[in-house]
């Protein structure tokens, strides 16, 4: 289903870009701390060279978003996600030596084991989509954090929506 060929994908994308809707909830609650979505260790990263081409900072600055969002218990890549992943694929095409890890996450309203499995599904859905866009599968690893690493700390719908996500992190 997600294995769209390039033309179909481009078609979908043009639709998506027009109707880039729902996913990341409209009004986001303030981020709890300055931590943002950096759930992976980026200690090798220096703020001073934030614009260095091919860096994580460059990736984040260049793509529509490093994160796509999912509905409760779902793992399908919708039009908004597709646009985001397209922008990531373009960046990866510019830096063919770069590899990425896609982190799959869930909200707290799930049992632990199931969420680990669901996070895997989400990360792999994003991976599959990027591979469909021509990114080499060998450049993409996945990891599930289940509900272990929330970015939004509330126990409410908007927080849960922000936590149901797949985050692309460049391997530096």
């Amino acid at each position, binding site marked *: 289903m997600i294995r769209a060929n390039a033309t179909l994908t481009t078609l979908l994308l043009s639709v998506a870009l027009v109707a880039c809707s729902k996913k990341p909830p409209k009004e986001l609650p303030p981020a*709890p701390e300055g931590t943002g979505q950096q759930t992976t260790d980026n200690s090798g990263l220096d703020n001073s060279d934030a614009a260095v081409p091919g860096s994580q900072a460059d990736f984040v600055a260049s793509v529509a978003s490093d994160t796509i969002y999912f509905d409760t218990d779902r793992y399908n890549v919708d039009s908004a996600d597709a646009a985001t992943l397209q922008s990531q694929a373009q960046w990866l095409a510019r830096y063919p030596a770069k590899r990425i890890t896609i982190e799959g996450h869930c909200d707290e309203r799930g049992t632990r084991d*199931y969420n*680990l499995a669901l996070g895997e*599904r989400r990360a792999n859905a994003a991976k599959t989509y990027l591979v469909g866009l021509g990114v080499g599968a060998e450049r993409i690893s996945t990891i599930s954090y289940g509900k272990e690493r929330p970015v939004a700390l509330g126990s409410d719908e908007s927080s849960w929506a922000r936590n149901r996500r797949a985050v692309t992190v460049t391997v530096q």
Partner: protein
Amino acid sequence: MMLRNSLIGLALAGTAATAFGQATPLPPSGAGTPPPQEGGLDVTVSDESEWQDLGIAIPGFTTDRDVATPAGQTAPLGRQLGEVITADLRNNGLFKPTGPSALPGIAYSDVTAPQFGIWSGRGADMLVHGYVRAGGDGRLTVGCYLYDVALGSELARQGYVVAPADWRRAAHKCADMVYSRLSGESPFFDSKIAYIAETGPKNHRVKRLAIMDSDGANHRFITNGQATALTPRYSPDYKSLVYLSYVQGNPRIYVYDIGSGQQRLVTQSRNPTFAPRWSPDGRWILYSMAVGGNTDVYRVSASGGQPRRLTTDPGIDVGGSFSPDGSRIVFESDRSGAQQCYVMNADGSDQRRISFFGGRCATPEWSPRGDQIAFTNAGNFKIGVMSPTGGSVRTLTDGWQDEAPTWSPNGRIIQFFRTERGSGRTGLWQVDLTGRNLRRLKTPVDASDPAWGPVLP
């Protein structure tokens, strides 16, 4: 500490009776400092409507000679034995025990010839007497006697020879003897619990593998918290723990040898593995593995070797719990659209959905008695039980988020963890099968993912 009791379906020997006075003056031997009140359970919720108190008097155990041992002087140790037994019996919701702090001491000769008049005057129905003796070989001998005060007769006795470091086990064994003799149920106090100790803020939770006795004593952290640890399970022989760790980056399950402190991967796959479980005989480990995003249940010999894939469905098949005889496995799957519980044979054949109660069935755990399956209703996050065919569904808890039931060794009590809304703070709780006796287990820090092991031999 207050106590409310109720129990349905358990026949108690003797009749309910007046509780005896907590306020009675005590002071027997001036044998030193009061025992540390480590471990134990908070009584936080309970039902006052049904008191079925069987008053049990448990004076401090006596000794023939007050001598030094690695566990302390035998006189104060005897008193501590009585305290541990009292706490055990108080915490199961059946009895109204009164311990050494509210009772006179006894003489060594009283152990086999109790002064029943004293105890009947205090309203005790049952009486526990015992002694502790330091042996020449450095070990302790503990005698445990149960008497029916009204009948003036002995109901049971046992003796235990333990290393001084294991003195609490003698107390748990004694409490188990009393519990079993009076309730007709299997024992469960002399057992241990593995769980995950949690500290830190919600978005940076530190999760450590930890173990403790069933009453919270002898607590020990196993991992240092640098890598997230999740979902431990004690091996049936208590020699090792299987659990999930992110120590190598990706989630993988490891077998940790408690004696050596070494751990090894359960299976060498590069794929993420999680949700590990032991078979009741300890020969097999059940686990879940995601391949290309699809999670299935696998089984591997505890000593290693080639894993066997048990499920092949494209849905998420995860977790699992063996029936006590090892012939069947209950697991969860979302193959029908949402999480539901399924039963299959231990080789993966004959997979059938059993949960049709309208909610979502997750984290099923087969009772050690075989007659019930506990689960998390992932629709409303309450703990429930049902028959192995999915009938007689009952909800036992009412927290905002209750999850991950684990059975007491005798299948009478279910432990689980509760998460607070907002803060994300967690704690271990337990409830009996009536749903009326709900208590929080004290842990040094927040706690989740409990796993109760079998009764020690």
